């Protein structure tokens, strides 16, 4: 494919992706700027990084006073058949005005390393009993890293734990994090937020469901037959993607 057509196609896919994100945020949070996201792409049109334009993140107010910041970023690759953007990494992060350390961080890593779950939350808080449990784990598995850190004087922290949240397909969406901020922290929202969050969540979950079906078509077909659909396997039928269905 000529480079200019390839670039147009990638640009339009990025625009489509950002329009959905922007629509959800703009109908949920007051004062979202039009130039919310900055996108950089390598010259070959393969890797894409998306980040909000303001370094502190998206301002979340309570009764018009800034209280929290939401950081949103994605690193994507253009699929080999040039039909979709694959999310390699995403981060949704809530922080306060006065501390650079986040309160909570939702990460997704398509190819995680170091025995951590691909989709996880880090909670940046402290509890003595948790530290005790982390030390008591000894030097097994990730405990070995903590032991090395302790040898150089660093105590384990709750934030070092990666709490698993649904693997590749069933992880939370941006809409979930926005609704959490509204429900728990009383963040100001627009009257259109209910529809925006519902529509965005349906869109996200439909897409994830389709990907999950492609991961395990036989299980999907079996359930469809059970509820009355007629489904026939292609020839040859697709094997389950166990790298996806088994991953934590």
């Amino acid at each position, binding site marked *: 494919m000529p480079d200019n057509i390839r*670039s147009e196609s990638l*640009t339009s896919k*990025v*625009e489509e992706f*950002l*329009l959905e994100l*922007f629509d959800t945020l*703009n109908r949920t949070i007051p004062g979202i700027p*039009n*130039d*919310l*996201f*900055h*996108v*950089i*792409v*390598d*010259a*070959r*049109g*393969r*890797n894409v*990084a998306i*980040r909000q*334009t303001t*370094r*502190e993140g998206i301002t979340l107010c309570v009764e018009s006073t800034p209280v929290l910041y939401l950081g949103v*970023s994605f*690193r994507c*690759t253009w699929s080999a058949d040039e039909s979709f953007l694959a999310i*390699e*990494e995403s981060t949704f992060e809530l922080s306060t005005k006065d501390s*650079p*350390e986040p309160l909570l961080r939702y990460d997704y890593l398509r190819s995680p390393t170091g025995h951590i779950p691909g989709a996880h939350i880090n909670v*940046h808080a402290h509890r003595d009993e948790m530290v005790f449990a982390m030390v008591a784990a000894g030097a097994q598995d990730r405990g070995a890293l903590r032991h090395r850190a302790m040898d150089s004087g*660093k105590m384990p922290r709750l934030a070092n734990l990666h709490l698993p949240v649904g693997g590749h397909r069933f992880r939370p969406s941006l809409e979930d994090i926005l609704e959490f901020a509204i429900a728990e922290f009383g963040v100001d929202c627009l009257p259109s937020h209910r529809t925006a969050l519902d529509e965005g969540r349906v869109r996200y979950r439909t897409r994830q469901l389709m990907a999950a079906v492609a991961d395990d078509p036989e299980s999907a077909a079996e359930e469809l037959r059970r509820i009355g659909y007629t489904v026939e396997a292609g020839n040859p039928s697709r094997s389950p993607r166990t790298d996806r269905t088994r991953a934590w």
Partner: protein
Amino acid sequence: MTLNLEYLTEADIESRIRDLLADAGMTLAELRRKGATFALDRSERAILDEIEDLEFLRESA
């Protein structure tokens, strides 16, 4: 919504990383070391994030 999208060559990427490190006044190793212990201020942290975005692009270049 304004689409703010830039295509960057390998030279652009290297130049931006150099500029960001100059802004931070630290080496990349120092930024990473402080980043790992949340010892960066918000602006320094944003610089590290931007550098890591550029490194992600460089993987394809």
